[in-house]
């Protein structure tokens, strides 16, 4: 590994100042499960590495406030998956956090790192999209709230600006009953990113939100507000046209080592139908 200066700021303001001064040569370190690999293989060569884990205002945790959950960016997947508030209000996010890598990875991998790394296969990206999350960023110009759908650009690239870091993810607690699920296809459990990730959320008003990843340069959100998909009584033929429209933005790369485009597109439909069934069942069970 090449060497670098390691800094451990104690306030967000200090971290932002160092990040802004360093520009492209400075890099934020959270759990390191992406960054340390890149430092070692030389695909990231920062001269300054800024560790976020000793910043008092960035302590990991989940809190409920003003009708929303705020998850600190440094919260690790193990804790996101186990959090009672996340499990109650956002089951698909808890499910997604619980399948990231292995126990060892989940004990380090943070929610903030997962979104900032912006892998098209990031497991938490799709639940955050269906739950309409907001990314809270702190930078030289102050605080910015970015809708998660406006955050991802392509692998490794987000709309964060120079000097900005993510402090938290906010999730509005749904005002109506909802059901949600997260599913994925992997080659091997515990050791690989998924070849398809998909989350779905249905609500009592009949709105269905799908998000899927690993089938294009960034995760995609698609919304059906006709009420058709959320209604289990609608016959399969009537749904299939709408489902096709939902998946129209999938454009898997032919160069991927994980799976062919044809396989991914086929699996997207299988997983979509499966997740939708679970979400509808959950919604029905919850409103009993």
């Amino acid at each position, binding site marked *: *590994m*090449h*060497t*670098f*200066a*390691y800094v451990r700021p104690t306030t967000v303001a200090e971290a932002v100042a160092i990040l802004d001064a360093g520009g492209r040569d400075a890099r934020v*370190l959270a759990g*390191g*499960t992406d960054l*340390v*690999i890149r*430092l*070692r293989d030389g695909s990231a060569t920062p001269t300054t*590495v800024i*560790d976020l*884990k000793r910043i008092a205002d960035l302590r990991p945790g989940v809190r409920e406030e003003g009708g929303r959950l705020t998850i600190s960016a440094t919260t690790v997947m*193990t804790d996101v998956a186990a959090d009672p508030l996340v499990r109650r209000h956002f089951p698909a996010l808890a499910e997604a956090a619980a399948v990231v*890598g*292995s*126990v*060892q*990875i989940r*004990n*380090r991998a943070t929610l903030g790192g997962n979104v900032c790394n912006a892998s098209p296969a990031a497991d938490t990206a799709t639940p955050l999209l269906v739950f309409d999350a907001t990314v809270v960023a702190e930078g030289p110009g102050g605080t910015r709230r970015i809708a998660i759908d406006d955050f991802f650009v392509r692998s490794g690239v987000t709309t964060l600006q120079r000097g900005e870091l993510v402090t938290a993810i906010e999730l509005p607690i749904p005002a109506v009953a909802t059901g949600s699920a997260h599913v994925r296809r992997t080659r091997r*459990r*515990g*050791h690989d990113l998924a070849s398809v990730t998909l989350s779905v959320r249905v609500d009592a008003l009949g709105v269905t939100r799908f998000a899927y990843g690993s089938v294009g340069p960034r995760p995609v959100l698609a919304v059906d507000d006709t009420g058709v998909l959320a209604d289990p009584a609608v016959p399969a033929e009537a749904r299939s046209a709408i489902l096709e429209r939902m998946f129209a933005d999938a454009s898997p790369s032919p160069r991927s080592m994980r799976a062919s485009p044809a396989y991914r597109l086929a699996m997207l439909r299988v997983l979509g139908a499966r997740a939708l069934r679970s979400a509808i069942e959950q919604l029905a069970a919850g409103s009993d």
Partner: protein
Amino acid sequence: MAETHRIEVTVNGLPRMLEVPPHHTLLDVLRDDLRLTGAKECCLVGECGACTVIVDGRTVDSCLVLAVEADGCEITTVEGLAQDGSLDPLQRAFLDEGAAQCGFCIPGQLMAAHALLAGNPHPTVAEIQEGLAGNLCRCGSYLQITDAVLATAAEGTRR
């Protein structure tokens, strides 16, 4: 040469003060500076689990943790499992069940299993498989490893 950092860690119950360069991993420091060679260097990308150690009660792949990040932490390596010269029940069960073939992955498997049992003293087979999913065994001793964890859990009940 990069500036080094002074860190204080507790390793297997002993306080240690170390000078570490920022780009050395916890695995480097355990093996090369502290001569604790139980944790193995293998894939270096967090996939095989051979470098698993416990930091503040949680398993990590020590190849993905910078040593300087561990400042102030309590670390347990496989060398810390045996107490007063006698093997930990989990180590004994691995021997009894023939779970160790070549042995290379075993320190990591032991640490993952140790942390699993600490949080869940009576895991199901599925929970053992999930708890140890981050530890590869190229000899394919997964059945024996699972049996060893089950046997340790059962023995824990008897004692």
